[in-house]
């Protein structure tokens, strides 16, 4: 027995230095199913960052990153199972799907195992709030995005607004934050409509809005494709000419291929490739690796995520211990990612990141600005 103990100890002591040279990152995300459109581009960005770091010798020149990937099929239960499997394989950090709901399903597992988890691109500020100490997000929060767009609308002289939202997910309730901020600023809400995700026909809603007198100055929604183009076309076909404001979900090639109906549309997103910006550099690198330009900013968001992990390992003096890394992530400040600088210090896990306001102009993107919203305007996270 003693022999066994000693040899085990010896073996583990010998194995230890080797283990410290690799950071095992578990990736439990949706490669198939309804979340795949969002998770797969993030994973592409993650691969670019990991390859870049490993080719340069690893984090700080010595710690290689090893990815352990599992498909959770966009399913909450499967996310929890995959996370448990990754925990059993001894990962130090876990990457969870883009939506708050499956990520929340893994909270029990990560909290129990005391391993930090980062959602690929969930933007609901309630995720880290409910998720506790080990749950981090990687995207500008819904409430922050809505504050930026409401402030912009008000400053443009728009005084009345209408919202269309879906109670189906946390993300699609972003317009409720918009309404809160818009009213706080002194604007007037003329009404609201709800829809279901996947709804094909918006003609009834569009007809009702077209019949409003006076017409709202602004219509805000966080609906994304395929619903969004349908909604936009229905509104315009019914004769509604109000300014329409969307959110990051419509930062997609479809939006820019809609032609005249999309002209003047404004939306918030995670970044904009200005001249000489890290995002421009990332986009160039993406094109080199994949042979085509990125379709969405979510690629760069994946790159950001690995940069955060890299910064945390460096801040933890090269430690790959999960608890140490959690504390390091929670104290990160101004990490330079591809889309923005990222700060977790002083937050509950919802990072402080830049929000870009984009306008569709001549079928292309025009940057309106990258404002930092007034903290006193940002609404409290609300569980829908």
């Amino acid at each position, binding site marked *: 027995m003693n022999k066994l103990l000693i040899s085990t100890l010896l073996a583990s002591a010998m194995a230890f230095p080797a283990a410290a040279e690799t950071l095992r990152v578990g990736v439990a995300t949706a*490669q*198939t*199913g*309804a979340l*795949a*459109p969002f998770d*797969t*581009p993030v994973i592409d960005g993650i691969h670019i960052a990991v390859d870049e770091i490993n080719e340069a010798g690893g984090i700080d020149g010595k710690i290689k990153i090893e990815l352990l990937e599992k498909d959770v099929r966009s399913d909450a239960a499967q996310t929890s199972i995959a996370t448990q499997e990754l925990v059993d394989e001894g990962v130090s950090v876990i990457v969870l799907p883009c939506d708050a709901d499956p990520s929340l399903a893994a909270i029990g597992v990560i909290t129990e195992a005391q391993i930090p988890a980062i959602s690929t691109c969930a933007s609901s500020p309630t995720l880290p709030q409910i998720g506790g100490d080990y749950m981090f997000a990687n995207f500008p929060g819904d409430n922050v995005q809505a504050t930026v767009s409401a402030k912009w609308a008000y400053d443009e002289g728009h005084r009345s607004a209408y919202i269309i939202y879906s*109670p189906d997910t946390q993300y699609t309730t972003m317009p409720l934050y918009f309404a809160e901020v818009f009213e706080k600023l002194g604007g007037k809400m003329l*009404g*609201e*409509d*709800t829809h*279901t995700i*996947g709804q*094909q*026909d918006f*003609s*009834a*809603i569009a*007809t*009702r809005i*077209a*019949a409003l007198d006076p017409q709202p100055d602004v219509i805000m929604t966080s609906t994304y*494709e*395929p*619903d969004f*183009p*349908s909604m936009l*076309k*229905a509104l*315009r*076909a*019914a*004769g509604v000419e109000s300014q329409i404001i969307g959110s990051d979900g419509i930062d*997609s*090639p*479809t939006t*820019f*291929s*809609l*032609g*005249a*109906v999309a002209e003047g549309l404004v939306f918030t997103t995670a970044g904009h490739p200005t001249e000489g910006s890290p995002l421009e550099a990332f986009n160039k690198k993406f094109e080199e690796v994949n042979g085509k330009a990125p*379709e*969405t900013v979510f690629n760069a968001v994946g790159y950001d995520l690995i940069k955060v992990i890299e910064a945390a390992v460096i801040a933890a003096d090269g430690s790959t211990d999960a608890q140490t890394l959690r504390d390091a992530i929670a104290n990160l400040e101004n990490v330079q990612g591809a889309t923005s600088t990222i700060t977790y210090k002083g937050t509950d896990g919802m990072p402080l990141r830049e929000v870009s306001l984009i306008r569709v102009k001549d079928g292309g993107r025009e940057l309106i600005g990258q404002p930092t919203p007034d903290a006193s305007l940002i609404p409290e996270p609300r569980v829908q």
Partner: protein
Amino acid sequence: MDLFLQQTVNAFALGGTYALLALGLAMVFSTMGLINFAHGELMTIAGYILMACGLAGVPFAFSILLAIAAAVLAAIVMERIAFRPVRNASGATMLVTSFAVSMILQVLFQNFISARSQAVLVPEILSESVRFGGLVIGVNKIAAIVTTIVMLIFLDRFMKHHRIGIAMRAAAEDFSVARLMGIRANTVIAGAFALSGFLAGVAAVLWVSQRASVDPLMGFTPVLKAFIAAILGGLGSLRGAVAGGFLLGFIEIYLAAYLPSGMQEFRDPIALCLVVLVLIFRPNGLIPSPALKAEKV
């Protein structure tokens, strides 16, 4: 009053699309008792052809033809590969097979095309609208209504006068007797699939031109709506499928238009409750299939 008329036009346009979808399901069900849940993927295939044609710069009118042809071809191939081997199996086996076909196709689309939606270039004219007195009607609505009417007239004539149409009706009433009369089962079933593919292709053009994008999971919602419409109308009855499609369209639009805003969240459950209510009074659907001998206890 104008508002009511406007919403009625909306209901006709949506109901017409549902009717085409439900007809596609009913066509196959009436001949071989299969509810083809992969019907939606035929639409997705047509959608991807529209996307590819847009990228290649093919004129939209021509790409519509290509898309419909692709859906017909895919339906025939689907029957030959997946459904012919299980033709004599139980209804449950065929149902599960159709789910399998649907999922396999979705995963293939996700892996070989893209998990993300792809933009489809739709002519600007379809986003415009026309004024009739106080009514504002979108060109795509007019297109949907006109297409539905043309398709219904075409199908009616086909089923009444064409040899294969008559054979299909005979097979729907009693397949064994129809075969004893010398009607070839393969021809009838392949014909039914081809027609259902045709309907899926036409519906896909209407559906995709409204949303301007196509994604791997696009087929799910339309096939679900078609299924509800087909049940509502009377499963296996072609006229029933049309009636069910229109009724479902009317229910959805009028609820979205006239439910008070606090109740809007419950629009879908309320719509389904109304469907159930209709089925309580007409358990075999609005216009039951004459071949339906099932007795409800």
